[in-house]
C-alpha cells in the first residue's frame, strides 16, 4: 500500500507538472470564463439602450421585385401583404421589367397570366432563390381569399377551422429529456474526451518506460500491481482535477454573470446532485476500465510510436460506445441503449445517459454498477499481469488477444 501511494504521488505529479496539462487546463478555463462573461462585458461597455432599433426586415425592404398583372384582377395590396421577400413594384410592360432587372433595379419580376399562372423573370436562376417560392405562396393566398369571398365565405373563418389554436401543457412523470439534454451531452462528451486523452497518456507513459528501459529497475523495485494501479489512478485523479476545475470555473463564471444571462442557462448548471453522483461513480469506473486496458496496451509495445496502431481496436470500440450513448440520448428507451447499459464496455456511459434522461429502476442501476465494478477489478488484475509479462518483451508489438492467450497458457 505504501509503495502504491508512492507511485500514485509520483505519477500524479508527472501529470500535474506536465506543461501541456497546465496550459490546456488554463486555456479551457480562460475561454469558458470569457465566453460566459460576454453578456456582462457587452452590457458594461456597449450599452445598447440609446441605439436606434433597426428594422428586422430592413434589408428585405430594400429589395424590389417587378410585377405585371396581365389579368388586372389581382388584389396587389393583398399580394404584397403576403409576399415577404421584398417590395412589389408595378412595371408598365415587359420591356421595362426586363430593363430594370438588367439594371439591378429589380431583383426579379413576375408576370401574372391568370390567378393561378405566372411567369418568373430572373437574370440568373440561383439555387437559393426564394423569390418565386414566396411569390407563389402569396398568389395562392390571394386566390383562396378571392375564391372564398366570391362564394360568400370569410377566409379568416376557414383559417380558424383549418388551423385552430391548440393549447397544451406537458405533465412529466419521468425525466424531461429536452431539459436534461444539454448537461448530459456536456458530461458524456467530457467523459469521452477525458478517457481518450488520459488513456493515450497512460499507454504512452507505460510504453516510454519500456522504451527507455526504466521498466527493469521499476519492476524489481516494487510489485507491478502497485505500478499500474498507481499510474492509472494518478491519471484518474488528474482527469478529475482537470474536469473538476473546468466545471468549477464554468459554474463560478456563470454565477457571476447569471444576471446578464437572465438566468437563461440555469438548466445547464443546475445539475441535480444525484446525477453528479451517478456520473462520478459510473465515470470513474468507466475511466478505470479503459485506462487499465490502455496501460496493458502500452506494455505490449516497445516504442511509443506503436501505441496508436495497437490501440486502434480499443479506440474504435470506445467510439462505438460513445455513438450508441449519443444516439441513445434521442431515445432513452431504445433496446440498443438498454443492452449497452449493462455491458461493462459501455455501461458507464449508456447507463448514465439512461439515468440522466430516461427512466431506470434502482435495481437496474445497482446491477449495472456492480457488473462494471467487478469487471473493472478483473480488468485491472489482468492488465497488471499483461504489464508484468510485457515488461521485458521487446520487439514487435504483441496483440491484446495474443497476450491474453499467453497468460492463459501460463
Amino acid at each position, binding site marked *: 500500500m505504501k*509503495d502504491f501511494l*508512492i507511485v500514485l504521488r509520483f505519477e500524479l505529479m508527472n501529470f500535474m507538472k506536465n506543461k501541456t496539462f497546465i496550459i490546456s487546463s488554463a486555456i479551457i478555463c480562460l475561454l469558458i470564463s470569457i465566453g460566459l462573461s460576454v453578456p456582462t462585458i457587452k452590457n458594461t461597455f456597449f450599452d445598447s439602450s440609446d441605439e436606434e432599433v433597426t428594422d428586422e426586415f430592413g434589408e428585405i425592404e430594400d429589395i424590389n421585385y417587378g410585377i405585371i398583372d396581365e389579368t388586372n384582377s389581382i388584389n396587389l395590396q393583398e399580394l404584397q401583404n403576403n409576399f415577404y421577400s421584398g417590395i412589389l413594384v408595378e412595371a408598365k410592360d415587359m420591356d421595362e421589367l426586363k430593363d430594370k432587372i438588367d439594371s439591378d433595379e429589380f431583383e426579379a419580376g413576375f408576370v401574372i397570366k391568370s390567378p393561378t399562372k405566372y411567369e418568373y423573370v430572373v437574370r440568373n436562376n440561383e439555387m437559393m432563390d426564394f423569390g418565386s417560392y414566396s411569390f407563389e405562396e402569396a398568389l395562392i393566398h390571394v386566390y383562396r381569399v378571392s375564391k372564398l369571398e366570391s362564394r360568400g365565405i370569410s377566409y379568416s373563418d376557414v383559417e380558424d377551422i383549418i388551423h385552430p389554436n391548440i393549447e397544451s401543457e406537458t405533465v412529466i412523470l419521468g425525466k424531461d429529456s429536452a431539459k436534461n439534454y444539454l448537461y448530459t451531452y456536456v458530461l458524456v462528451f467530457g467523459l469521452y474526451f477525458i478517457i481518450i486523452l488520459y488513456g493515450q497518456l497512460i499507454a504512452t507513459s507505460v510504453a516510454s518506460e519500456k522504451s527507455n528501459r*526504466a521498466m527493469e*529497475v521499476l519492476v*524489481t*523495485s*516494487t510489485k507491478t500491481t502497485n505500478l499500474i494501479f498507481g499510474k492509472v489512478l494518478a491519471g484518474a485523479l488528474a482527469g478529475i482535477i482537470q474536469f473538476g476545475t473546468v466545471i468549477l470555473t464554468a459554474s463560478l463564471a456563470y454565477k457571476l454573470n447569471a444576471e446578464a444571462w437572465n438566468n437563461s442557462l440555469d438548466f445547464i448548471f443546475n445539475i441535480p446532485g444525484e446525477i453528479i453522483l451517478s456520473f462520478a461513480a459510473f465515470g470513474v469506473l468507466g475511466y478505470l476500465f479503459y485506462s487499465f486496458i490502455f496501460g496493458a496496451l502500452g506494455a505490449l509495445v516497445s516504442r511509443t510510436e506503436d501505441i496508436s496502431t495497437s490501440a486502434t481496436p480499443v479506440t474504435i470500440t470506445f467510439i462505438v460506445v460513445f455513438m450508441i450513448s449519443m444516439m441513445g440520448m434521442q431515445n432513452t428507451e431504445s433496446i440498443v441503449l438498454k443492452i449497452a447499459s449493462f455491458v461493462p464496455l459501455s455501461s458507464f456511459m449508456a447507463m448514465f445517459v439512461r439515468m440522466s434522461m430516461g427512466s431506470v429502476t434502482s435495481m437496474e442501476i445497482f446491477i449495472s454498477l456492480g457488473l462494471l465494478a467487478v469487471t473493472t477489478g478483473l480488468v485491472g488484475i489482468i492488465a497488471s499481469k499483461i504489464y508484468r509479462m510485457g515488461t521485458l518483451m521487446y520487439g514487435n508489438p504483441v496483440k491484446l488477444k495474443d497476450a491474453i492467450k499467453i497468460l492463459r497458457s501460463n
Partner: protein
Amino acid sequence: MKLEVRNLYKSFTGVEILHGISFNVESGKALGLLGRNGAGKTTTIRLIMNLFEPDTGDILLNGKKFNPKEHQIGYLPEERGLYPKKKVLEQLAYLGQLRGLSRKEAKENTLYWLKRFGVEEYKDRKLETLSKGNQQKVQLAETFLCNPDIIILDEPFSGLDPVNSQILKDVIIEQIAQGKLLIFSSHIMNYVEEFCEEIALIDKGDVVLTGNLNEIKTEYGKDRLTISVVDMSAEELANIVKLRLTNLIKLVETRKKYLIIELLPSVSKAELLKALAEMDLNIEMFSIYKPSLSDIFVQKVGEN
C-alpha cells in the same frame, strides 16, 4: 547469507536457453559470472531477480526460497535506463522510496552516492541532458542508494572510462569488505580477478567451471612451471628444452619472455632444478605456473 542457485532451466519460445545452472555465493564474497556474449549470464541474473520464473530449479537464500522483494537488493540491469525527462535527484529519491527508504533517507542516500560517483552537481538536471558516462554513474548511484545486502551487477564496467572504473572498483571492494553478497557478470576478466573469490563460467547455457578462483588457478597450474633464463630469449630456451630436457618435461607454451612447461610423471621440481644447474643456465625465473583467468576462460570455452 548464502545464496544457492540450483539446477536452473529456462526456455523461451520452445528453445532451451539455460540447461541446469548451479552455483553458490556467500556474504562477504563476490561471485563473478563469466561467459561470452549470449552465454546466459543476463538470463540467469533475471531469474535470480524474479523477472522471469525458471522452468525448473531453485534459488535459495539460507536454504529458503529466495524472494528478491523481501530483501534490499542493489540491481544494475544490463539494459540501463531511468526516466530521461526527470530530474536526477527526483527520480532516484522516488526509486529509493520504492525500495523501502523514507523520503528523507532516500534523498540523503541519493546525494551521498551522487557525490561518491562525482555527479552531485547534476542532481537538479534532467537525466537526458547528461553525457552517457554520467548517466551510467547516476544509474550506479541508484543501484547502491538503498544500502543493499545483496548486490547484483550486470556488466557494471561497460561504458566507464578508466578513472570511473577505478571509482567503481573501490566501491565494490568496500561493499565486499562490509560483508555484502555480490554477484557480478562480465566478460572482462581482469576486473573479475581483482575482487571475485568465486567464479561461475557459463557457456551456451551450461556452467562449465565453478568454484574458488584460487583453487581453480592452482588446479589449472598443477605440475606446470614457468621458467626463464637471463640473456636468453624464450625461443632459444625452448630449443634447449626440446633438445636436452624431453626426458623430464613437456613444453606447453612459449610466451614472450618465458616458457610454460609441465613436469613429466614422477619427475620432481628438484630433479629439474638439478638438471638446469648442470647445464650452467643462469636461471632468472623458476616458479609454479598460475594461469590467468583469461587463460582458463579461453581454454575452457575453447574446449566447448
